[in-house]
């Protein structure tokens, strides 16, 4: 999406008309690609190994990391992120929290991960991607329920909504330009209505996701104007909260 799916759009543009319908079906199918035979499963396994492997200056694992449901609790944690953490007095999303745990619990040097949190097309997954895949998978089937009890969580939600609607640049685009109506397309590519619970859920319950138009694995954060070392993670929060 860094290039707004233009790669894909270009690809689609060259599809002969009689194949167009088939192409559309492929897009519907790719959202279903998160089952057992998805390439993401391998990444999840790498992440699981990383989670319990000792590392950093302190040579300990991440297993005591508190993802919001208590130290070491992984099951269901992703479905309640981003959230407020009192130990940092910040709203943190999964990636931000993981980096914080690596730094404080393990004494890990995260400079490189801050610099390059997500893998480029064709290159190996970063530790952050592997860990996120593992943790997100352990929320499969869990109702998304992002907390809104703390004022900072409410503030993050509002800020995310503002970002979603922020129009700027030579094309005057905001996320809302493409994602605020149901059943619309860019070229042949169907767009999800992300300011609506139905569309938001469809997208969020399948993140971090296997993408057809980008490298094998990509985290939601990579797609948004938020970054893992950001003060808080807003755009993500807003849409997750729609559920």
């Amino acid at each position: 999406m860094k290039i707004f799916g233009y790669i894909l759009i270009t690809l689609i543009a060259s599809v002969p008309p009689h194949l167009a319908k088939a192409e559309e079906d492929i897009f519907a199918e790719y959202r279903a690609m998160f089952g057992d035979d998805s390439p993401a499963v391998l990444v999840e396994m790498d992440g699981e190994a990383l989670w319990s492997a000792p590392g950093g200056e302190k040579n300990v694992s991440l297993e005591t990391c508190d993802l919001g449901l208590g130290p070491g609790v992984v099951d269901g944690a992703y479905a309640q992120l981003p959230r407020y953490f009192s130990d940092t007095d910040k709203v943190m999303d999964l990636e931000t929290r993981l980096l914080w745990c690596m730094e404080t619990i393990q004494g890990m040097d995260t400079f490189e991960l801050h610099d390059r949190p997500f893998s480029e097309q064709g290159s190996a997954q970063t530790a952050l991607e592997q860990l996120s895949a593992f943790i997100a998978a352990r929320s499969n089937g869990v109702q998304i329920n992002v907390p809104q009890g703390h004022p900072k969580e409410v503030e993050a939600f509002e800020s995310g909504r503002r970002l979603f609607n922020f129009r700027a640049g030579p094309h005057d685009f905001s996320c809302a330009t493409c994602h605020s109506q149901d059943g619309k397309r860019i070229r042949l590519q169907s767009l999800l209505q992300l300011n609506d619970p139905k569309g938001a859920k469809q997208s969020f319950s399948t993140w971090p996701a296997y993408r057809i138009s980008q490298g094998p694995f990509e985290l939601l954060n990579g797609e948004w104007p938020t970054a893992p070392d950001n003060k808080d993670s807003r755009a993500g929060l807003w849409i997750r909260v729609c559920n």
Partner: protein
Amino acid sequence: MKHFTFVRLSFALPILFLVGCAANSNNPVADELPQARDPLSTSFKALGQAGLERLQQDDTQRICSEYEGRELPTDLMMAIIKSSTDSVVFPADGNFMGDWETGKKIAETGTGLQSNDDPSIPNGGNCYACHQMAPDEFAYGTLGLPLVNYGKLRGTSEAILKYTWTRLWNSHAYNACSHMPRFGANGVLSEQQLKDVMAFLFDPKSPVNKEVAVQ
């Protein structure tokens, strides 16, 4: 226009390919709207031709961001329509029509203005991203209205030519907070490119105006 202070720049996310430009209305009501704040200023760094000035909104962008999805108060709506109408520059030679074949390529091309695009190559209009145009092109988007047989259905009166030119130059002149990019006002397409796109819409030989095949 207020300016962001860029405290710390960390990640390059060329998602918003933005440029601050175009009309400022000096509307006092607009000035009272809050600006979207720091996540933008801390999450972007300049990359290629995508400079940080793209994060600065003009009044139209700011008002439309604030009211996205909701109806604008009449005074703001009128202010946008007026400044957008005033922004339109009609062709100096009074001729609206260029070459439809060049226009066809512009309508099909989606590159331009992104950080990884070569600024010396002319921008595309990417019209097919949002509009159905030639009836035999199936890879069209649906964010905009179908423009099939545009010239054939509307004719080429002075009024319709001016209307269409205005739509392309600054669509907000007819619909405040339109989702269509301001191709002329924001300098996305040149005057000659706009003429070529006009020809693609109006020329009787253009595929846009071909018979629609009966199924």
